[in-house]
């Protein structure tokens, strides 16, 4: 039961015929503030449950609209496997899309204008690179409240939290996107063996996120050797606007990359 608007992701069939005519969106026309209040109940449609997520809106090439309504519930149908929480302008998704061309990924973003920008960006990329970027999409939502509405238990193999809002004041720490409470939910939607990637340029936040992950019984740190081998890790600091800005300013980044494990019975 979603009141989905048709511009989610990429249904525009008639535009694909004008090859290359679809230009990349210009950020200046999508001005947005860096912050959005995650506690306010904004009015965007939320799927009642993961069964209600309309995959044909997001990934039309994989789920042609109108073809077999029951497909979304089909156990064999491909599912979203990567989620970029707070995806901003979509840089990570674009970078991951070609690295994992057969994996469906979604970005979740709270800000309206930023979401619109990314939607346009994805449509433009699909139009000028036929056969590519069909596996990425974005949804405007509050992932701190509604993650279980989008993903089934153990659905995701990767979750990303790049440069989240630090919420410096102690009374606002509970608004941080990584916390013991929310890690329960992230662990729920991740499969055992799945990987959670976090990065920030704020040292205190980096320590906070690492500490939460270390304390949480369902996550364990991934050894350095393994992190070095992971092609995704480099993208954390280079693929996004935020990461590039930090590099330009010569800032340091702090990563915490952990694996979802099963609970050790005592």
């Amino acid at each position: 039961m979603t009141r989905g608007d048709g511009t989610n992701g990429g249904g525009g069939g008639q535009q694909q015929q004008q090859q290359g005519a679809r230009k990349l969106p210009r950020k200046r026309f999508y001005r947005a503030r860096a912050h959005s209040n995650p506690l306010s109940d904004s009015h965007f449609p939320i799927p009642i449950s993961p069964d209600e997520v309309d995959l044909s809106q997001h990934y039309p090439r994989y789920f042609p609209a109108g073809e077999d309504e029951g497909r979304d519930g089909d156990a064999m149908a491909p599912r979203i496997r990567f989620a970029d929480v707070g995806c901003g302008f979509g840089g990570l998704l674009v970078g991951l899309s070609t690295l994992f061309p057969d994996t469906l990924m979604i970005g979740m973003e709270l800000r309206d204008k930023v979401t619109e920008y990314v939607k346009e960006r994805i449509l433009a990329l699909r139009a000028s690179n036929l056969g590519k970027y069909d596996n990425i999409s974005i949804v405007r939502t509050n992932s701190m409240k509604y993650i279980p509405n989008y993903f089934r238990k153990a659905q995701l193999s990767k979750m990303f939290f790049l440069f989240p809002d630090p919420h410096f004041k102690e009374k606002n720490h509970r608004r941080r996107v990584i916390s013991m409470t929310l890690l329960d939910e992230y662990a729920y939607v991740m499969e055992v063996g799945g990987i959670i990637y976090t990065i920030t340029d704020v040292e205190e936040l980096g320590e906070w996120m690492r500490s939460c992950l270390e304390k949480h019984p369902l996550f364990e740190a991934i050894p350095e050797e393994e992190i070095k081998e992971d092609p995704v890790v480099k993208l954390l600091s280079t693929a996004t606007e935020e990461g590039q800005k930090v590099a330009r300013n010569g800032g340091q980044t702090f990563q915490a990359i952990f694996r979802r494990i099963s609970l050790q019975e005592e």
Partner: protein
Amino acid sequence: MEDATVEEAEVSGAAEFAPALVAAHPLGHSVAVAVGSELRVFDLKDGSAVSLSDDSGGGSHSDAIRALSFSMNGLLFASAGDDKLVKVWKTDSWCCIQTITSEKRVSAVAISNDGLYVTFADKFGVIWLVNVGQSDGGQGSTDNKPVPIFGHYCSIITSMKFSPDGRFIATADRDFKIRVTLFPKNPLRGAHEIQSFCLGHTEFVSCIAFTCLSQGPSFLLSGGGDSTVRLWDYINGCILDTCQIQDKVGELLEPNETEDSNLAIADICPTNDGSLVAVAIQSLNGVMLLACDFIAKKLSFIKVCLFG
């Protein structure tokens, strides 16, 4: 004696009045009623009112009571509410043995099946757990501070129940969600492993209750602001059946009373043998009875009993 427990959500006029609450002892010994800040208990065996006493060093509730709960075996009882107090009572003597202070107002309370722990939810959606005091009259035991064990992020918890086998704790919130969490052997470390989410309500979930056949399967019932009572396979987070209340009570109410908000489910209560479910509905001056079929996994309408 069957415990047809019903919560009458009689919200008269302004929404500032807390609804009156009712809870029945699981073995039918007594009935507890909360009206505002007043807690009253009636002994059904003696047929007389009970006078409450307090050994915990605290006074009686000073603000609206928002939650009541008996433990599974009926030995303990908990009350909590807007005065930020959680009071734990022994039901043989109706003496309050422990008063716990919460940082925030409390919206739900439950007692673990083994009677060792009390859990309560605050208005930020955090679930706290505290040891039930040892019966040495332990006043102000310093290691009895509540610890947070999990939470529904920025949601108000409306109902919290332990599963009959004690393995799970289910919590429902105003953001349409029901979460079923594994209740670990050592819960003081937190309850971090989510078994399932039961998602399907299209409005706030107002009440949940486990129902089971003795030695048999158990399911979860829920009622919500969407005027439905739902039956769930809570192990897998699957909806088994949905009962639309509107159709059944439509003709019993005045036309102006049938707006959706007036048909919200106020409370549900299954009988001990699992065969029936009593449903309290806002604006309905009566109780609806549903039958629960564990084989077919379905709910069916039986009748509406009107008061007066």
